[in-house]
């Protein structure tokens, strides 16, 4: 498996978050739900990293039936604005999808709806600018 070639990809929005040792408001972020999260590694937060996580993030409230993918599972995340792709392993629970139901960002006619994945700064900056914030993405397993 790899970028943009799985049978059932998920489409949505991606953002970035900090974890592990960090500075500023991120200083107390900690190692995430998996205990291994680190801003310098290509990792991600997934809304269904565990059943308990699923109860918090509630992507089903926005109509997303996301598969359970636990700590260490590798996703391939494609920035749909420029086609760049990065692989990232699950290291935390998030984002809180249900708090942003219906939110959408587009590149031309290509849109991503609902927050489905957060990447660490190193993973996000490999495919987009950190100042971009939210971008439409494709997620393959």
């Amino acid at each position, binding site marked *: 498996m790899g970028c943009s070639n799985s049978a059932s990809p998920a489409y949505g929005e991606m953002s970035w978050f900090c974890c592990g040792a960090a500075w500023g408001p991120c200083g107390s972020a900690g190692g995430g739900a998996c205990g291994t999260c680190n801003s310098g590694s290509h990792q991600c937060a997934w809304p269904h990293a565990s059943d308990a996580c*699923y109860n918090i993030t509630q992507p089903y409230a926005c109509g997303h039936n996301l598969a359970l993918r636990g700590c260490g599972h590798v996703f391939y995340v494609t920035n749909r604005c*420029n086609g760049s792709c990065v692989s990232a392993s699950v290291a935390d629970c998030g984002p809180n999808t249900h708090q942003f139901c219906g939110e959408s960002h*587009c*590149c031309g006619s290509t849109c991503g709806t609902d927050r489905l994945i957060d990447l660490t700064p190193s993973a996000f900056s490999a495919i987009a*600018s950190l100042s971009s914030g939210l971008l439409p993405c494709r997620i393959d397993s």
Partner: protein
Amino acid sequence: MTVPAAVQPLLLALVLAASARVKLTSRTARSRATGTALAAIVGKRRAPLAYGMVGGVEAVVALALLAGGVPVVPQRIGAALAVAASTAFVGYLGYARLFAPDSSCGCVSARQAPIRWRSFARAVLLLAASVVALVAGTPWPAAVARPYLAVGVLVVELAAVALLSPELDERWLFPVRRLVLRVRPHPLAGLAYDLPLASTVRQLERSPAYREVGGRLRSDVLDHWDEGEWRIVCYRTDSAATAVFAVPRLRYDPDSVRVAVVTDPEPVPA
């Protein structure tokens, strides 16, 4: 003093029952237990179970307080349990504030709520009510002797608990603040701001031009300036050239964004 004292077991029973209901029935609340200070005490793995057990204890204390209305059951049994529970709760908040300051209270709602002075004030209020109930020992049915006074005391105390509960801000504080913003001018309205660069970049990212060359950009915005109706935005490409975008400044029209890639012997000065 008899009637207000008789109301305290009811107040405590209501608050404890509400808290227990959340802990015992809300899957979301139990899942969030890993983010509460309880996780710092018992560990993240055991936190959901411990959270449920706390809910069970709260339910038992609430029942014991209500059982004080039965003539053969002394009200002081429930009141003593309430004093113990309230004291433990104050201790829990103190521990959390010292050793897990960023954790959630995990108190009376599935909503996350930081542990700040209001949480402490609420805990102290409940402890005081417990002590009054224990010292007076008045069974709660005595409150019906003066029903208006009893209801008044109960309503005031429940209102105080609500005011001191950060978890309930969404129910009353935020609507009040929204109302204030509606009846008065929005504090952020009418500010004659320039067009933020973020707006230009967002339009740029939506353009067909950006999709064509975006994968080759290696930097964030290097330089930008306005040129008539256009805002010019520059990036560095993977071949050390400069990608120059012209973005409409006065209208929203991503399709009209233009781009040129220029081999640039002298990038913008740092």
